[in-house]
């Protein structure tokens, strides 16, 4: 009897040793980027020793490396059965489940290891939008400007916003905010008559709600109804005299109608409220040019060029300066600005009409 136990123990020791050898071979293959050999070795190890967590983990990792996420799930789950607190296994299993569309199942694993980026995606998928936005922001703090994270954050924020708006419209359909929200949707869809109607209804309910006149003004501006746009922007500027955008939009609407002196005053006011806004400065330059205030035009457009350097707005400012200098008979300066304009056209393409 004893001999039988000894034989069994010895056999087990041999299997464990053989399994570990396959694990080592698998790791060697990994170093040589031979992923299929790697998988074969780790698989052999798991077959020889079904209790060897290391072998299951590495097999799962090898499948992940091969982007065979479906195949990775089972060995990673087995790893965690054998070694429940292994963080790396939780992380890989979370990723694998997420990649396979099992966001809810992935969430606890990702939470366990604090993988904020993947966790946020899982939360986005499962409709936990607020948590998702929080985690995307946290992940972005570590990897600023990551295009994937920025995309997901935008997507999650949009859905969160939509969800809140849906709740608003459902709970308070006749509120000014509900009409405003509907109007914004119509505006995005370029359904201007409907947008106009909803904004007007919102204004009827709450005439003093900040932002409504500004948005309605943009509906009118979009359809080139400049006198109406002017009225709305003016109302907003009166409501919020400290809001630079209202002054800018009012100035731009005045400019479109050729009311250059009024536009100049309003754009100067906007620039005073919020300095160095390139669009405001560009329009201020135009207003200056139109009113014969060459100094303002030159100063504003020069500042646009300084701020924007090689954008299309900078190109436009160069073009404006060229016209200004040509009118003043300053041929060399005009030529220089025209060359700068053409240079930028060459790099960023010709400015297109809207």
């Amino acid at each position, binding site marked *: 009897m004893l001999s039988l136990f000894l034989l069994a123990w010895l056999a087990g020791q041999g299997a464990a040793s053989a399994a570990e050898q396959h694990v080592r071979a698998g790791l060697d293959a990994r170093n040589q980027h031979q992923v299929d050999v790697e998988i074969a070795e780790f698989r052999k190890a798991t077959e020889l020793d079904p209790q060897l967590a290391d072998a299951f983990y590495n097999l799962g990792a090898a499948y992940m490396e091969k982007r065979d996420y479906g195949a990775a799930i089972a060995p990673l789950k087995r790893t965690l059965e054998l070694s429940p607190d292994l963080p790396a296994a939780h992380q890989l299993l979370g990723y694998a489940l997420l990649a396979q569309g099992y966001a809810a199942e992935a969430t606890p694993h990702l939470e366990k290891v604090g993988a904020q980026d993947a966790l946020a995606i899982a939360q986005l998928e499962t409709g936990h939008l607020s948590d998702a936005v929080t985690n995307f922001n946290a992940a972005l703090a570590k990897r600023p400007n990551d295009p994937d994270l920025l995309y997901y954050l935008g997507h999650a924020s949009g859905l969160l916003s939509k969800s809140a708006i849906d709740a608003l419209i459902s709970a308070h359909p006749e509120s000014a905010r509900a009409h405003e929200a509907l109007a914004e949707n119509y505006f995005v869809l370029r359904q201007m008559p409907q947008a106009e109607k909803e904004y007007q209804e919102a204004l009827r309910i709450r005439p003093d709600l900040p932002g409504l006149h500004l948005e309605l003004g943009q509906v009118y501006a979009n359809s080139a109804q400049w006198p109406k746009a002017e009225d709305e922007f003016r109302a907003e500027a009166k409501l919020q005299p400290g809001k630079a955008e209202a002054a800018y939009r009012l100035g731009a609407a005045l400019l*479109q109608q*050729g009311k250059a002196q009024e536009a100049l005053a309003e754009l100067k006011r906007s620039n005073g409220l919020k300095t160095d806004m390139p669009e405001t400065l560009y329009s201020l330059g135009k207003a200056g040019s139109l009113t014969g205030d060459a100094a303002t035009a030159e100063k504003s457009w020069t500042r646009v060029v300084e701020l924007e350097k090689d954008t299309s707005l900078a190109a436009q400012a160069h073009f404006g300066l060229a*016209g200004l200098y040509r009118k003043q008979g300053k041929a060399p300066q005009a030529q220089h600005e025209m060359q700068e304009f053409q240079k930028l056209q060459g790099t960023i393409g010709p400015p297109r009409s809207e």
Partner: protein
Amino acid sequence: MAATAPIFEVKPLRGIDFILQNSPTPQKYLIETMPGGVALLDYNNDGLLDIFFVNGGRIANPLHVPENFDRGNSKYWNRLYRQNPDGSFTDVTQAAGLAVAGNGNYGMGVAVGDYDNDGYPDLYVTSYGRNILYHNNGDGTFTDVTAKAGVAAGGWSVSAGFVDYDNDGHLDLFVTRYMDWDADHNKICGGDWHTYCPPAVFPATTCVLYRNRGDGTFEDISERSGIAAKKGRALGVCFADYDGDGFTDIFVANDGMQQFLFHNNGNGTFTECALESGAGLTSDGKGLSGMGTVFQDYDNDGRPDILVTELPRELYALYHNDGQGSFSYQSLESGLGALTSGSSGWGIGLEDFDNDGWKDLFVAQSHVLDNVERIDASLRYKELPLVALNHHGRFERVESGATSPLAGRGAAFGDINNDGWIDAVVTTLGGPPVLLLNRGGQGNHWLSLTLRGTHSNRDGYGARVQVNGQTRFATSAGSYVCANDKRLHFGLGSSERATIEILWPSGQKQVLNDVRADQFLEVREPER
């Protein structure tokens, strides 16, 4: 102050049954949305303006090159209507020998000028296909002299105009061409919406300049003159001597890009200088969807300015001639910003509709896309014409008198009923032309001049004519695909007398003092 009553009233064109057959198809061939021209001319010299219309043609669905456009079918003929003394019109197309528009030619526009100085206006018809020069035989008939004259052009011609660019007394011919396009290379844009493509989808091409040899033949000098050095997407064309050097310059309205200003160097060559002179782009340095154009002095400073019609979201461009060969973009200052940013303009005229001494604005309007309303609910396919009175250089909209929106394209201007007030004829896609008859009768005086060149070309095209401080450059070209009454109309306001100063293309100056108002006057260039 803006007048409250409409300037015009829509009147039936009695005897005119023309329908502009543009033949729209689901294939959205770009040619479908571009015709068609109208000319106001007195082809038989009876003192009454006659009307010539250019037709499109039948477009098969789908169309395959070569396509004949079924121009032998009377439905697709161009049409000449002779005005009768009672104001009605008679279709004289067949009798005049104009019924054969040439299979394979989808019609676009028309130019009018007496290219052989025989005293009778000749016709040049542009097409997608082959252009045709019809010589006016002086007996009510015309003869196709294209082959002999050598002016068929080919490709896709749109607008054209007669101009004496070298001041040799013979009218030359300038032809705009839109793009390299044919049905086999057509594209449909707009995704599910299926729309006509923007011009940039197709390759640009060159305009054509023909020099009149004076013997009934023309020479293609596009290359030699420098005109062909620039490729564009040209639609409209207009002429004036913008820098006062005695040679007529050429402005070309290009679609979706920079405009062209061909400065006449006076030696048979041209230099394209739109960008340098400030007449190439908007004030924001952006390209324009240039379509129709006119080159006349809107602010009575004696220098010709340029107006260009465009698509919505752009403003009709007004390039003010600042002198010294320089222009500045003044659409906003002139009030055009508020009037035009939501509209699409084609044919355009700067004429003194209220005879107050300031040239007013008329634009035939309609979007280029016939389904634009499905794409953008804030835009309209059919629009009312724009009529804006000129108040000392600032335009203010007045009612046009048209009550129904139109798919307007061409617009030609002239005094159709010889009452001293300028009228307009608008062509509409798929529909009949619309006559907008000037209501007149506001007490202002006027003067209408017909130039008779002797050393200069007989039509006097290119002459600079100044009357009581106003200036006109003699031409029948301008607008879009159209030819205007060649008579030079001046509103005189309350003045009952006028002083006329003419600078003929020959260089001769002529002054007529104390001329009575309210008359049609022929002025003959003095013999040297």
